[in-house]
Structures are given as C-alpha cells and as structure tokens.
C-alpha cells in the first residue's frame, strides 16, 4: 500500500504569497509615490501623498494578486483592503480625538491646585497655578445624584411594569417612552427652564439641572432596563410561580437578581450619557466660578458646562482649563463605562466566579441543614 501524503493543508486565509503581496505593494507604493512627488509634480501636502500612495498601492496589490488568482479573488482582496482602510481611518480619527484632548488637558492637570480650588480667585489673566475646577466636580456629582435618585426607582419600576403587565395601557406607556427617547436634550432643558425657573419662579440651580437631566435620562434608562428584564428566561419566572411564590416574590427574588448585572449596566450607561450632557444644564444650572454645594439655591456649574464656558474665553489659560475640565469629564465617562463593562459583561443569570463560590457555599450549608434535620 502506498502511503498517502498526510501533510495538513493550510486553511489559514492569509498565505505566505499573499503576505508578500501586501508588503510588496506597500513598498512599491511608497517608492513610486516618492518618485512621483520628488521628480514629476511638486509636493502638495501630506494628504495628497497619502491618497495617491494608497491608490498606487491598490493598483500594485491588485496586479500582484492577479498573478496567481482569478478575478473574483482579486476583487475580494482589494475590497478587504478598502474595508480595513475605512475602519482604520474611523478608529484613527476617534483615537486622535481622545489623545488630542488628553495632551491639551494635561497642561492644566499637571498643577495640583486644579483639583482642589475653584475659579473664584482666578482672574482671566492668572496663570494655571491659580484656580481649579473642584466646584464643577461637586456640581456634576450633585446634579447626577439628584437625577439618579429620581430616575433609578422610577425607571426600574416602570421597566418592570412594561415587561410584567400586558394591556392597552402598557402599550401606550411603552409608545410614549419610546417617543420621548427622541426628545432633543436641549428641548428637555427648555422645558425645565420654562416651567421650573420662569413659571414657578425658582432660581437657576443644581436642582433644576438635575430635573432637566432626569427628563432626559428617564426614557433612556426605562428602555434599556426593559430590554434587560425581557431577557430573563421565562422558565425561571415560571419556576418561581410554580414553587408558590407570588408575583412580587418572584420579581424580587428571581427576576431582579437574575437581571441585576444588566440593570446596573443600563443605569450606568444612562449615567454616562447624563454626565456628559451640556445643553440641558446650560439652560438650567446657571454659571458660577465659586463652590456652591447647595443644589437648591444659586447657580451651580457642572463639568461639561464649565468646559463649554471656559472654551468661550479668549485667554489661552482659560482655554487650557477648559481642556483640563474636558479631560476630567472624559475620565469620569471612561470609568463609568469600564465599570459597566465589568458588571455587564455577562448575560442574564450567568454568575461570576465569586458569585458561584458563594452559591456553592450556600448550597453546602443547605445540605448540612437538611442532613441535621434528618438525623434528629
């Protein structure tokens, strides 16, 4: 019997010849474009160099691939480079935004007083060693807390209402909530400005800003939480009811714990949206350069609003402070987002290692309890 060749066929899409084609195309493109711009036409700008270079690369790459592939394969590879280019471009732009704010913001953040002082003593010509944004940090914390105190209980209760009851009224509420997610945030601010500040006569304050943020965040949180609660498997709910638990006990002991990580994610992502929102706060919070820890009276500034206001200043140091405030704001949003990712990375009902250990211990304790009862 002859032995068959048993070498495994390489199913990896990128084979050596194709990698060679990519590198060959790149090198050729760089060389040809350099030749073109130094010898044939005058240098126009880096953008023109990149665009022309890419087109040359596409032609060379297509040529190299077509040497040992058919037309379909050439089309496939060329489109793959196009898609990769577009994706890299998008990623590049988004990275540049973050890095740019980071670099510009670092200038203000490198002075420690930026985190401990407010701006009440900083005149428009004072250097960065005077003044900070602690007043805006306090404002942001208080305003988002007010918004969360309103939206968390109301939002989660409403999402439970939407997923646990059926009927005309439920459908109506769901439609209205969905419609309200389309409400532009500036209009939410305008509503609170007209009602709370002009009609009811309160001054611009942190409380008004918190209310405006609530109006904006409520539909977002209700919708996100509704989606999460509907993902809880129906058989868990039925098991709870079958064991004799009422609707309330099933909800409190089965559905909500199962959906806990998803609900937390919904709330945190809503918070991230609310923290960064400028326009409702612009209309309702007022502006102050001093610490105002009382949200019920007097203007109270928040981080996005401080960023926005400082950017309007013609003084370079004020603009630097604006970038610093933007960097702190971005850091807050990033932290919230990462927390949401860590908590919400698992689908409903899947436990972390620690939760699993705790369940196992509880189960062993139950077993002991049963055995003790049988023994006695």
């Amino acid at each position: 019997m002859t032995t068959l060749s048993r070498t495994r066929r390489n199913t990896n899409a990128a084979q050596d010849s194709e990698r060679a084609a990519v590198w060959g195309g790149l090198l050729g493109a760089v060389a040809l474009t350099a030749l073109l711009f130094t010898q044939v036409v005058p240098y126009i700008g880096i953008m023109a160099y990149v665009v022309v270079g890419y087109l040359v690369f596409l032609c060379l790459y297509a040529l190299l691939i077509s040497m040992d592939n058919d037309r379909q394969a050439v089309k496939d590879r060329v489109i793959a480079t196009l898609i990769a280019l577009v994706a890299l471009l998008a990623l590049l732009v988004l990275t540049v935004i973050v890095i740019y704010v980071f670099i510009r913001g670092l200038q203000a953040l490198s002075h420690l007083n930026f985190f401990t002082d407010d701006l009440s003593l900083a005149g428009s010509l004072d250097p960065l060693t005077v003044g900070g944004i602690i007043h805006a940090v306090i404002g942001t914390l208080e305003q988002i807390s007010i918004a969360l105190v309103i939206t968390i209980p109301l939002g989660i209760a409403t999402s439970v209402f939407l997923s646990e009851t059926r009927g005309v009224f439920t459908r109506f509420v769901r439609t209205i909530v969905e419609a309200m997610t389309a409400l532009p945030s500036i209009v939410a601010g305008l509503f609170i400005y007209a009602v709370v500040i002009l009609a009811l006569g309160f001054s611009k304050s942190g409380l008004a800003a918190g209310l405006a943020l609530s109006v904006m965040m409520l539909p977002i949180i209700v919708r996100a939480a509704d989606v999460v609660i509907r993902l809880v498997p129906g058989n868990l709910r039925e098991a709870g009811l079958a064991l004799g638990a009422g609707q309330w006990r099933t909800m409190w002991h089965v559905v909500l714990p199962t959906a806990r990580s998803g609900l937390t994610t919904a709330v945190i992502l809503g918070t991230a949206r609310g923290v960064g929102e400028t326009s409702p706060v612009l209309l309702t919070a007022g502006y102050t350069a001093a610490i105002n820890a009382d949200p019920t009276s007097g203007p109270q500034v928040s981080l996005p609003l401080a960023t926005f206001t400082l950017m309007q200043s013609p003084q370079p140091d004020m603009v630097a402070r604006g970038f610093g405030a933007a960097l702190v704001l971005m850091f807050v949003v990033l932290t919230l987002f990462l927390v949401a990712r860590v908590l919400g990375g698992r689908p409903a009902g899947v436990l972390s290692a620690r939760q699993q250990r705790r369940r196992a211990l509880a189960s062993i304790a139950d077993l002991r309890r049963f055995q003790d009862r049988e023994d006695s």
Partner: protein
Amino acid sequence: MAGERRTTALPGGIDRLYRAGLRTAGVIVLAIMATVGLFLLDRGFSALAVAKWRFLSTQNWQPDSHNFGIAAVLPGTLLIAGVAIVVAVPLAIGMALFISEYLTGWWQRTLTSAVDLMAAVPSVVFGLWGFHFLQGDIGITDLSAWLARYLGWIPLFAVTGADPDDPLASRTVYTSSTFIAGIVVGLMVMPIICAVMREAFSQAPAGEREGAYALGATRWGMIGAVVLPFGRGGMIGGTMLGLGRAMGETIAVYMIVAAVYRFQPHILQNGANSVSAMIALQYGSASQFGLSALMAAGLVLFLLTLVVNFAASAVIARSRSGQMSEG
C-alpha cells in the same frame, strides 16, 4: 397534608400592592412625559397662532416684532445632519463590516468596546476638538478650499466672496461652516450607527454563510450575497437613528458654527445654524413670547426626530423578525 390546593393567585395581599405600585410608576412616567409634550404643544401653538404659516417661510428670528420663522434654521439643521450622515455612514459600514466579518476573538471584542465607548464621549469634547483641532491645527479649511475649487460649479459647494483659484487667499471664509459642523456631528453619530449595523451583520445566519462558502464564494462574495442583504434593515435603521441624533445635536454645532438667521445654502462657506443651536443661543434673552416661539421651533424639531426615530425602530424591528432563515 390536608387542605384545598389553590390554583389561582390570591387576589390581595402584597401582590395587589405590588401591582398597584407598578401601575403608579407607569402613570408617573407617563404623566412626566405627557406634561413635557403637552406643555411644548400648548406654548408652541400660542406662538404659531401669531405667526401662522409664515412660521415655515420666514428667514428671520425677531419674535418680539412677530417676525420669526424656521425657514432658515430648519434647512440648516437638515444640511448639517445631511453632511453628518454622508461622513458617518461609509465609515460606519466599513467599521461594522471590519469588526463583524474580518476580525475574531480578542480584537473583535476590543474594537466593539472601543466603538461603544466612543458613543459615550460627551458632545462638548467633540465640539472643542472640532473647533481647535479640525479647524485650527490641521486646517480642514484647506479641504474646503479644494472642494470649492473643483466642485464649485455645483451650487451646494459654491463659495461667494472668495477666489478659490487663489492659493494664498485667506481661509476665514471657509471657517465655521455647515461642512465643518457636519463632519464633527458625523464623527459623533458614527459609533451609534456602527453599533446598530454591527449587530445586524452579526445576526446573519451561519448556515447561509457556510452555504455561500460551500458554493465557492470568496469572503466578499459571501458578504455581498448573505451579510449585506440580511443586514439591510439594520443599515437603514441605524442610519436613521444616527440622523435623528444628528438633528438634535446642540453643543458641538453651537461651538463651531457662526450663527446666521438667513439660510446659507453654501455648505463650505462661513455661517450656518440649526434649530437646537438657535434655542441655546436665544433662550437667555428671550421674552415670554420669544420663549414660546423657541418652543414652537423645538416642537417642530422634536416632531421631526420623532418621525425619524419611529421609522428607524420600525425598520430595525422588521429586519430582526426576518432573521430566521429557511432550513
């Protein structure tokens, strides 16, 4: 154990309280939302009753002399949102296809997170980046000038008051334009559109993907035959969702445009406006009636985003129901 087994939930006790509590929460949320809507309608209509149909045809904003309308800012909003969509959609399609079809494992998860994170970056950050970096440091106005030079024969890209052929002419005429605001807003809504599209692409059924490969399709052949047709609803829906967000965007537009109250049809030229930026600019100095007029403008914007959003969710919902494949 003796005793009757009950087969229905007892009507009473804690469950009745629970249901009442849920209903109350629903009613409160409904009341808040309805108050916002009705208040806007009521106040908006008091301004509309004065302006009548001229509200839709007046290019001015002087509510106290009853000479106001949204004929300038509403097309301005649509132009900015249009530029934003033209910028965002190709980027979002490329990104979504790259993540869902070309990447696997760690890279796929990481890039998905990165795009989701970008959706949470505050708009004020995008605004200051657009103003200082895009318009200041790297000079996007050069691109504006280039477009005006070669595409100036199209009315949309025309620029008055500047000679596009003069390479040394001042670039100030190209600053603070619809084009630049549109690019910034487009980058802002790109992650949202991309997330919806990626979700739709990743739901294309594996059986049909394998079928396409088994018939000898290349990867692009498979994408063209399976992924894109299945993701079409998600692509349209995501685009409309992005359009809704782009129309409602305030702060980034406010920070970049030089506000004008006459319609500026030349997108590359200095001067632009949008409904939401106008509200942010005007509310502080507005009288009682001026505020009603702003509410009328806000109402029109809200109705527009409402229609777009509902259409988007209808399209997305229909594409989900179509994900089940035969066999």
